[in-house]
């Protein structure tokens, strides 16, 4: 019951948080001195034509009126029309969302699978060679620019060794679409060729995205484990002769994960946003490439829509983290 209460109270905050986000993003995007009407009207348009277009698009209204209209539209799920694709932005975004989510989740799996165990090992063997090496690697992992890493990986594994595809999400049309998540769809339809091909394409971008995240996780897990490892209950478990492996990987890790999970939530958000760069390099047909195109084309509303969807995912993930917390730390339910 207490869990439901926590979830509801977080959900209540969802709307005001989202409103704050829209507010900030809307006004920031209007600070940029571009005139969508002029861009649409084209280079040869007369001033009168541009003015007419502005009136038609509502751009002649004061900013607060534009904001009011935007929010009213947003409430019905309408994010406006893209200047370039001439389709509803919400449709464009929803169509591309699965590609990005799939990539981000894959990166998350790699980051957790790599970061958490290495963090534990680093802490258990603190100040050993392994620990020192991991610490240097994790600092450099954080310092590396993802576009540079992406291109290095491409050059080595795709161009030189030819092991992985250079870019794209899949060769050909992809599996029959059900959810838009290719891995899931190909599994559902039993299309193994597509499954492996998707995985093959996903490898490099996922690793590029995952490495800095894994580095953060190594550091957080290490710190968490070190904090727990000296607590009295670990001393008790050791004094009572519990197997060391059990103490480390069950009893210590479970406690250390409490703070790591918070971090995982934040990392997921930053991975989602960080996908912009990685998607651009690997030509991954997700939200990131869409955002890059929109920015290059001064498509303000599309950028706004992108920012909002990133925000929604971020808020959603943090809600999820709060829920997971109630499961792994019973004290939150007190």
């Amino acid at each position, binding site marked *: 019951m207490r869990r439901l209460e926590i979830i509801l109270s977080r959900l209540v905050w969802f709307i005001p948080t989202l409103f704050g986000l829209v507010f900030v993003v809307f006004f920031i995007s209007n600070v940029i001195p571009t005139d969508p009407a002029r861009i649409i009207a084209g280079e040869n348009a007369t001033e009168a034509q541009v003015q007419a277009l502005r009136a038609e698009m509502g751009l002649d209204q004061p900013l607060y009126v534009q904001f009011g209209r935007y929010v009213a539209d947003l409430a019905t799920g309408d994010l406006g029309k893209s200047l370039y694709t001439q389709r509803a932005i919400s449709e464009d975004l929803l169509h591309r969302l699965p590609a990005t989510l799939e990539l981000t989740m894959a990166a998350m799996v790699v980051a957790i699978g790599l970061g958490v165990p290495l963090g534990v090992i680093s802490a258990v063997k603190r100040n050993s060679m392994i620990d020192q090496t991991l610490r240097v690697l994790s600092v450099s992992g954080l310092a590396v620019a993802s576009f540079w890493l992406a291109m290095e990986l491409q050059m080595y594994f795709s161009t030189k060794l030819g092991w992985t595809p250079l870019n794209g999400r899949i060769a050909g049309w992809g599996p029959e679409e059900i959810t838009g998540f290719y891995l899931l769809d190909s599994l559902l339809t039993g299309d193994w060729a597509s499954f492996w091909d998707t995985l093959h394409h996903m490898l490099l971008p996922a690793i590029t995205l995952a490495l800095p995240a894994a580095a953060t996780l190594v550091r957080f897990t290490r710190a968490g484990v070190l904090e727990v490892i000296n607590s009295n209950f670990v*001393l008790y478990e050791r*004094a009572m*002769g*519990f197997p060391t492996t059990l103490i480390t990987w069950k009893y210590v890790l479970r406690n250390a994960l409490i703070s790591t999970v918070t971090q995982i939530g934040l990392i997921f958000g930053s991975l989602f946003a960080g996908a912009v760069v990685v998607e651009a390099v690997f030509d991954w047909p997700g939200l990131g490439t869409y955002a890059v195109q929109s920015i290059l084309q001064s498509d303000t509303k599309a950028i706004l829509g992108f920012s909002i969807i990133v925000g929604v995912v971020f808020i959603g993930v943090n809600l999820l983290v709060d829920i997971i917390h109630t499961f792994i730390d019973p004290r939150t339910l007190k």
Partner: protein
Amino acid sequence: MTDALLTVEGLSLGFRGDGGFAHILDGANMTMKRGEIMGLVGESGCGKTTLASAILGVLPRHALEVRGGRIRFDGIDMLDAGQAAQQQAVRGRRVTFIPQDPFTSLNPVFTIGQQIEELMKWKSPRRPVGPSRAPTLLTPYPRARRRADREKIMEMLNLVQLPRPEQLLKKYPHEVSGGQRQRLMIAMALLPDPDLIIADEPTTALDVTIQAQILGLLRNLANDRGVAVMLTTHDLGSAYEICDRITVMYAGQDVEAAPVAEFFNRPTHPYTAKLLASLPEGGGGMTGIPGELPSFYAPPPGCRFQTRCDRATEACRIRPAPDLAGPAHVVRCAHPLFQTTPATPLKEVQA
């Protein structure tokens, strides 16, 4: 000496730190017989907890330096790294532990039931000896044994007078009071059917009203089962109530060991006498022991009490050999308060 369950002989150890080598235990000796309750008494910082931790193998390894001495539990060398497997098998099974602070000694994110079951999965007396072949994290808990263990758990929770054990097992540690948690720790210490329980100041974290109950409970259950208990405490009153024998430590050295009646009637080491005299009396008078514990970084050679002892002479600069002040009453002092005779050297007894 043949019935000695645990012997600590000349144990010297300490920790390397920024200030140099902290020499915590300096030739500490201690013997425990089967089934006896032995109080290890001394002020805070005298090395009681360090000694207990050494037996349990939980001293911080990275800074630890053992300079000499042995800990033997029923033939097993508890310090020899070569016998790590035997030590691990003994700990939690034949030697169990009651921690000082029941509030932080249970894992906060697992239920009490999960933790007791885990203990029994590995340390139940019904568990076949020898290492299991499955990897640790995948080791199964056979259903038949689980059921038998479960029965014993319920029985034991009743014995330590925990109300409604069924519900208790479903709770998390933070949902249970301190007194109940310490009863739980006692239950967990008894469940593996041990030969020895090491109780490290098991009542200091509890209310005074509960302390007596907990100690009484521990004494009764240990006596019924013939389990030896090593109780470290700085509270002479409770040591008097429940112990068969008392060993006094000062600054990492054992100074006197005697049966409880002997101990209180004929304290022979000046430190013991002062310790007893410093107990608050009915009239409200209180006397302390002037001076402070010597520094562990630069302790005086020989008897470490010499810096605070009014009988100290040049002779105290060499650690006195054990003398007998009565039957089974061992004292290490160059200037004892009662007449002593040299004890038979340890080696001859063993031969």
